[in-house]
């Protein structure tokens, strides 16, 4: 029975955009809205998976994963901006509108290459990866663990948020990037494009899930669990825990970057608000809610908390923060092993 559970869920999820093709008014038709929201949740699920890999498996509680997510999003966003080309308000062949506007004469060097999709996709993985490498190397080398690491990573995403809010950075400041036109030749803002992006996100989620599952089943996965439970003991066994932690942290950051890269074309906007520390903490709550240390839990958590949030922000616009806050309080107290832990019991 359990063997078919996951493939069954994936098949159901894959069916969703197809139900959107049914004629309006059909009893089982799902609306565009549901497809686009579900696509967003898929991206969040990848982010949750990435976070779970670092936190649930290796005990690295990053409160800065939102930053990796946002950087991935910005990389793709830059590509999408380049693709607008002369269709922008000011009709400049190369420069995006906001640059024309701030009086840029030419494209800043860090925008070079983003006209090419493969390059942008590469950067969406590499930039978060490199940042994770730098921060992780410095932190793990100095044996910064636990809540200290959480605070450091939180400061990292906060500093990035402040920096990206600056218009002088060349990333569009508070407005970020929006009004995208197309991606790989496909016009965005159509139900078709959203379905395609939905499938891409689903494929990425399945890929990331399988990769994570395979990885955690190897001896590497067991080393991570050992590091989580007793890091210094692992060192006395002769493992250079710095390298293991760095490996999983960088991988996790790249996964988060991929999630961000898929997210931006789906929601149609990226701006520095994505770096806000609260976003990263929220992602941690998804994982905790679903059940950390289990991949299914992370995915389930991302879906359920976000579904709740989408529903509550319409159902009880004045009270939803309280409901969600109470949920955050209740999870560590009443269900420390999350949804999955509860279901298994």
């Amino acid at each position, binding site marked *: 029975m359990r063997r078919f559970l996951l493939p069954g869920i994936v098949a159901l999820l894959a069916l969703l955009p197809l139900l959107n093709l049914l004629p309006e008014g059909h009893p089982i038709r799902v609306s565009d809205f549901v497809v686009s929201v579900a696509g967003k949740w898929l991206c969040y699920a990848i982010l949750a998976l990435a976070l779970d890999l670092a936190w649930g498996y290796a005990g690295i509680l990053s409160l800065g994963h939102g930053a990796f997510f946002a950087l991935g999003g910005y990389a793709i966003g830059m590509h999408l901006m380049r693709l607008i080309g002369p269709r922008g308000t000011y009709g400049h062949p190369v420069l995006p509108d906001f640059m024309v506007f701030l009086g840029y004469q030419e494209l800043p060097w860090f925008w070079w290459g983003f006209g090419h999709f493969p390059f942008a996709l590469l950067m969406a993985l590499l930039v978060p990866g490199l940042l994770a490498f730098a921060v992780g190397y410095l932190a793990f080398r100095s044996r910064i663990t636990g809540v200290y690491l959480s605070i450091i990573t939180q400061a990292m995403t906060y500093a990035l948020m402040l920096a990206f809010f600056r218009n002088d950075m060349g990333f569009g400041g508070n407005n970020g990037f929006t009004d995208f036109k197309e991606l790989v030749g496909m016009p965005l803002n159509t139900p078709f494009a959203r379905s395609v992006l939905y499938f891409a996100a689903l494929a990425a989620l399945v890929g990331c899930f399988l990769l994570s599952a395979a990885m955690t089943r190897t001896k590497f996965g067991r080393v991570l669990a050992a590091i989580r439970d007793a890091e210094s003991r692992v060192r006395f066994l002769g493992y250079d825990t710095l390298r293991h932690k760095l490996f999983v942290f960088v991988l996790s950051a790249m996964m988060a970057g991929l999630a961000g890269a898929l997210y931006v074309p789906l929601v*149609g906007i990226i701006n520095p608000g994505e770096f806000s520390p609260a976003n990263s903490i929220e992602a941690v709550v998804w994982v905790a809610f679903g059940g950390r240390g289990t991949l299914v839990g992370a995915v389930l958590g991302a879906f359920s908390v976000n579904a709740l949030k989408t529903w509550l922000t319409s*159902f009880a616009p*004045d009270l939803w923060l309280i409901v969600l806050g109470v949920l955050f309080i209740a999870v560590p107290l009443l269900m420390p092993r999350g949804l999955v832990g509860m279901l298994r019991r």
Partner: protein
Amino acid sequence: MNLRISRRAALLGLGTLPLATPAFAQGAPIKVGVLHSLSGTMAISETALRDTVLMMLEWQNSQGGIGGRRLEAVVVDPASNWPLFAEKARELLQVHRVDVSFGCWTSVSRKSVLPVYEELNGLLFYPVQYEGEEESRNIFYTGAAPNQQAIPAVEYLLGPDGGEAQRIVLLGTDYVYPRTTNRILRGFLNSKGITNADIMEEYTPFGHSDWQGIVARVKRFAGEGKKTAIVSTINGDANVPFYRELGNQGIKAEDIPCVAFSVGEEELAGIDTRPLVGHLAAWNYFMSVDAPANRDFVGMWRNYIKNPRRVTNDPMEATLIGFKMWAQAVAKAGTTSVDAVRTAMIGQKVAAPSGYESEMKANHHLTKPVMIGEIQADGQFSIVSKTPTAIAAENWSPFIPENANRRRG
């Protein structure tokens, strides 16, 4: 009350209910979406606008709705989160099938929902002053464009009543509205013979609370022997600490007057305004306007919100104008269909609380009067200057050279 409405909305929001009911059946309620943040950083400004829309809705229903159809609000909370704005916009249009939406504050939220409204051919009323440089067939802009606020205000500063300023400090929060406005103002100032050496421009992040250094630098800049004035595009939250610092460092309006474009009655409600008397704000409406339409508006608001001390402000007035115009346009078109309403909107006129008549022009912007107010000790503004007539919006500013090769259309 609004909770009850939204509960019904929420049932639909599940997305599981098939939406078989045709939304435009005769006598079915007209749905009005409200897309204002009720939590997060923007809640401070936007909750009052949500209440304004609900108030107008109640009023319209008390008049028998529109064409015999009742109005029903769908309130959602985009939580000051820009991607959530886009999601909620789509939800309003596709799940709740609203006929019109009122919402957003700050350009980024509008730019986030704009592709959604264009794709799904929805109708959005945006009630806040903004930097211009935009024109969408699906949006009606009921706030001011730069020429309806910023330029007249600076003109006032340069004139005899404003103190004949020769140096200008442009202070702003680092986002697109201040950046654009200041760019336009720089062009304007240069055209008035004020060189760049006499212009200081500085930006701070959202919610900036430590103004000591900047105010001290402004003082120094002003101490170069020329009459100096501050033009502030500082956004909501940061204003209270800014004005406190201004007052505490003893900068009086007689020495360095400060004119603000984002400070209204609501913002002043959080400050002790006695040290600030004489500093200025430019809007298209002040609560202190002496006109019958305004007395009705203030009375209606205080009655609705059940608080005799609550204030009204410019974006609330803009919301009211937009709502009334939309209601008139629906009545004229005889349908809520977006294309028909859009056509009917152009040329609609409303006797606004500002005491002037506002008209919707073909560029989807309103004609508005410009008023300069001085802050008074009681937190209100004393209107020291106003244009004789409502002026039309230039959403594409002539002071931005790139607008010359803008794509039309």
